[in-house]
């Protein structure tokens, strides 16, 4: 019995193998065609290093924003019943499935110089978000935050409320209870959500190029640099792509093994 179960039908194995090849081939091609001999030279070039630094700064800033605003949002979505909560839930996670370029256009209409909010920001504070580094962070947050929210919302739902009640009876304020009881309970989910959000922010392309443009040193992150370099310097494009692949691989690999429980518990 067990032997039979361990040996799946040949057709299944073949189809599964094709799927594996489909995913593995492009990534292997990247590794094979990578100009390893000039790798260091390419990666240490000022343009690439600038793009790398900008990518890291922006994606980390977006992750911080996602945690700061996304955690309370997830808490409200999980714990507070209010009219229209389903609409709010859909609205705040919509950018996950929206084509990023659409998100970029929408951001322009809101925060662009003539946008419904952007105009006031410019008039009152002289703040112009489009085509600035802040704009990159904004675009990345817009696209990445839902990953954190959706992971945390599930965690807040499944966290044992009775532990919070126990804390209340011990004289703890809502804030202390949140910090010492609720937060530690959802910490694994928060880590998983933050890593997912960060990875999404790091790879963000469509919304960024639409809303923030492609200015080296200011808004040109690695994905944008890859796109540009494909025309002018294919070797650099390959190396940069490889970096993103390695980072993404590490994220998913780590999540799969360490946080899968928290994650699936969170999404289901």
């Amino acid at each position, binding site marked *: 019995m067990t032997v039979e179960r361990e040996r799946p039908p040949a057709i299944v194995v073949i189809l599964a193998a094709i799927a594996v090849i489909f995913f593995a081939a492009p990534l292997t091609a990247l590794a094979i065609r990578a100009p390893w001999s000039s790798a260091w030279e390419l990666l240490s070039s000022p343009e690439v290093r600038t793009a790398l630094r900008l990518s890291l700064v922006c994606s980390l800033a977006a992750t911080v924003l996602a945690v700061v605003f996304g955690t309370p949002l997830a808490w409200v979505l999980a714990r507070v019943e209010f009219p229209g909560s389903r609409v709010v839930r859909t609205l705040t996670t919509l950018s996950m499935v929206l084509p990023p370029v659409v998100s970029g256009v929408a951001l322009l209409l809101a925060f662009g110089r003539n946008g419904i909010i952007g105009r006031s920001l410019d008039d009152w504070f002289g703040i112009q978000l489009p085509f600035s580094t802040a704009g990159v962070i904004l675009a990345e947050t817009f696209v990445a935050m839902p990953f954190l929210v959706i992971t945390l919302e599930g965690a807040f739902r499944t966290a*044992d409320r*009775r*532990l919070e*009640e*126990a*804390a*209340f*009876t*011990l*004289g*703890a*304020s809502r804030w*202390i209870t949140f910090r*010492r*009881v609720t937060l*530690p*309970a959802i*910490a694994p989910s928060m880590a998983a959500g933050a890593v997912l959000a960060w990875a999404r922010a790091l790879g963000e392309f469509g919304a960024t190029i639409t809303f923030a443009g492609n200015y080296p040193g200011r808004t040109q992150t690695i994905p944008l640099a890859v796109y540009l370099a494909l025309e002018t310097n294919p070797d650099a494009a390959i190396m940069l792509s490889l970096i993103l692949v390695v980072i993404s691989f590490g994220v998913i690999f780590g999540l799969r093994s360490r946080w899968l429980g928290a994650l699936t518990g969170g999404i289901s």
Partner: protein
Amino acid sequence: MTLLAHLAVVRGSLDLRVELDARRGETIAILGPNGAGKSTLLRCLAGLERIDSGRLELDGTVLDDPAARIFIEPRHRHIGVVFQDDLLFPTLTVLENVAFGLRSRGATKSDARTRAASMLERLNLSTLAAARPAALSGGQSQQVALARALVTEPSLMLLDEPLAALDVTTKVEIRRAVREQLQAVDGTRILVTHDPVDAFALAERVVILEDGLISQSGVLADVAAQPRTRYVADLIGVNLFEGRATDQSVELTDGRRIVSASATTGEVFVLVHPRSVALHRSRPEGSPRNVWEGTVVDVDLERDRARVRVDGPIALTAEITAIAATQLAARPGEQIWLSVKATEVETYPR
């Protein structure tokens, strides 16, 4: 009276109406079947639920009074709660768990730790101070939960089935520990349980809660001597009927008659202790005034005793020795004769 709880709460099918007063230093056991509203009552006292109407007062401070728009949050009530599933904080150590209440109430970190450590010492739990709750046994967790509640020296200690989740052996041990520790509490203790043994071991007074209402209350011995509901009768294992007594004969609510030597007349409860019910293979001769034939429904063996449930004109449970049960061949389905002396039929007013 340090605790005054007059409250009404409706939650789904539960309609809880309770008037409860407790003195400082007193332990009251709230005993009742599942769904009677015991836990809801406790949650109201703790402030985890608001009462619909009525008034809760502790040491002269109003905790909850919807009419006066007063509601004191749980954290501002001077209470300690021991929950059924201990509910220790899994990410904190045992010491941090016990220090939690002191820290939340403003003690410095070192002061809280010192006091928590001495509390653990009092309960012989010092060796567990650095452990996480996941590493504890059920009995240890429950004791840590007790320590966590006790350390803040609450005016009102609330225990929700603190021993229910434990196995029999552990239960005996922890019951003793709880008993000792509760005696040291200055305030009022309210214990919710469905186990009369817990109530007997830990409380001076019992309140029987059935279907949201207090059906009986008082010193446990009195409640046990004169049960007033089927639940209490079953709890202490006696036969209970209701009827109308006239001149040494009681007409039960179903029309059957039972002879009693008690002098009470009018609406009465009739109590027959199982040990007073004799069983016979054939119709007994002699003095017993109450004799019926019935069918054995069920036999429960408990060590050297056998509890035999007999259906008949009046359904009764008899308690005889296991040997007698064997000799009588009292097996389910067998016809059997029962007799009860009139002097063994107790009556008391309804």
